[in-house]
């Protein structure tokens, strides 16, 4: 039995505003286990980002709880949370002169002293992260000198250097071509198996996710289900993914077909 890193208990997500609560999804009971690569899929605007924001503690749950290592995420100090959960976001990086090495090194911030001095152990972890993501040849380059695909690897390396049991990536494959998408998926898969980390990522590349992830969380307006890709296919879950009569999921080929 693999260890559970994060689980949600009757979680309801959404927004509270003056007009009242807007529930986006409710009764979510998800389990993220060690060594698994888990894809989160769903149509645009279905609430993938809201779910990720709630899990990472940026946003409060409407109801229910998120447990990270059996402790509520709301009970974590910022620093303690940073030592257990790292993220790769879609945010554009602000202009700076940061080199690739320095960018990855920032991942060690939750462990360094008040002025951010890197210890031998920190340097070791950074080197390890750089090796695992194959960006050795880039380490002295400025972060704006490399391609989008390379930058995505660098951001993954930064999350790795943060040395957390759980890494969450928000749409890491957007802007990448097919070759780089596949390369990134394979890298994530390798990382989960080699380091035993749990990686959760949201994506629109459903067919690639079906082939490469261990488990998938499918969000539709009706319900949210989590299972391994084969079971999801046999249950016909993917046909409910898009509410569009022209898009149809071919279970044999494992991909979407337009009629």
């Amino acid at each position, binding site marked *: 039995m693999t260890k559970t890193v994060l689980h949600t208990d009757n979680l309801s997500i959404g927004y509270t505003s003056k007009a009242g609560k807007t529930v986006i999804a409710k009764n979510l009971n998800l389990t993220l286990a060690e060594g698994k690569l888990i894809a989160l899929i769903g149509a645009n605007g279905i609430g993938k980002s809201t779910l990720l924001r709630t899990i990472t503690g940026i946003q409060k749950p409407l109801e229910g709880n998120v447990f990270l290592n059996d402790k509520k995420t709301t009970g974590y100090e910022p620093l303690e949370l940073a030592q257990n959960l*790292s993220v790769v976001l879609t945010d554009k990086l602000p202009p700076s002169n940061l080199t690739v090495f320095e960018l990855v090194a920032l991942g060690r911030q939750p462990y360094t002293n008040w002025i951010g001095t890197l210890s031998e152990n920190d340097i070791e972890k950074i080197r390890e992260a750089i090796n695992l993501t194959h960006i050795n040849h880039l380490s002295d380059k400025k972060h704006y000198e490399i391609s989008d695909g390379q930058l995505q690897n660098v951001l993954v390396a930064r999350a790795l250097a943060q040395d957390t049991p759980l890494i969450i990536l928000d749409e890491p494959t957007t802007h990448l071509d097919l070759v780089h998408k596949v390369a990134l998926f394979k890298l994530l898969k390798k990382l989960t198996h080699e380091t035993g980390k749990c990686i959760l990522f949201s994506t629109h590349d459903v067919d690639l996710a079906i082939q490469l992830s261990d488990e998938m969380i499918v969000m539709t307006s009706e319900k949210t289900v989590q299972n391994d890709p084969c079971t999801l296919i046999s249950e016909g879950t993917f046909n409910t993914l898009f509410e569009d009569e022209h898009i149809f999921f071919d279970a044999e080929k494992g991909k979407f077909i337009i009629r």
Partner: protein
Amino acid sequence: MPNTKRNTFLFASLFIGLLLLFFINISLGSVTIPFKQVFNSLTGGEVSKQAWEYIIINYRLPKALTAILTGMGLATSGLLMQTLFRNPLAGPDVLGLSSGASLGVAFVILGAGFLPAFLSDVVLSSYGIVLASTLGSFVVLLLVLLVSQRLRDTIAILIVGLMFGSFTSAFVGILTYFSTAEQLQKFTFWSLGSLGNLSWPSIGILSVCVGLGLLMSVFSIKPLNALLLGENYARSMGMNFQKTRLVIILATSILAGSITAFVGPIAFIGIAVPHIAKLLFQTSNHVILYWSTLLLGAAIMLFCDVISQMPGGDVTLPINAITSIIGAPVVIWLLVRKRKMMN
């Protein structure tokens, strides 16, 4: 790191350059005092002319120290703001901090007449002016920050800063309309900016304020580095964003506010010096940027002051004019260069 050697060399040259400029600054002026005499006087040795010693202790040394404090403080506040607002064009003057400080000072100098005599004496003291000026820049910075939270657009933030600038100057204009000639003269002299005229006790207050601001900045170095990846990443790495932002805002307000109170609004040092440091050291690491901005700010301010003295001449040019003449082209050049670093 491959750049260690280069950085050591740069730091060493900066430090030597700063020392050299310090002596040149003291030695030059309407009366030129030989280098050796300056050195003797500062180290407590014999000085051949009494008048020289008097000039050095009472005029040149306070002015040089004020230049150093001003340069260090304004440049550092610029660095903090550029990182906090993720905007290469941010600086105490651009974001309206200096005008906020002016408004505070205008209230005190021009508005003191409305207060009872014993109160006006209190507010017109150095402490009163520093407090009003710091408060003024703090309020403006808070307002800019509030607006920037809603806008998130870097150009819009700059325009908001400019708007606050013109709003406060309009307000100052209204205040001057209601004040006496004497008050007006006092305020006008202040607004021209001057590094001289600071008594030793005033320099003491300024040093404490600048020291406090710089100390708060040192403790912001690590979070500033995290902010290089943007607010969300910084939070995800365990940074307490609310607290960090408050410390940075307080530090910049104290720096810009206290300096503006004593020497008047000084343009372009805050925006230009951090960029020169970034170009020289080719890094965004605030551990290096902090110290290089500090040294460069002091050196450039001393240099501007040397020019404003017009060596050998009797006239002193307003320091604000010199910093603008040097600073404005630097900013334009930066915009034209506009590599990916800028956007």
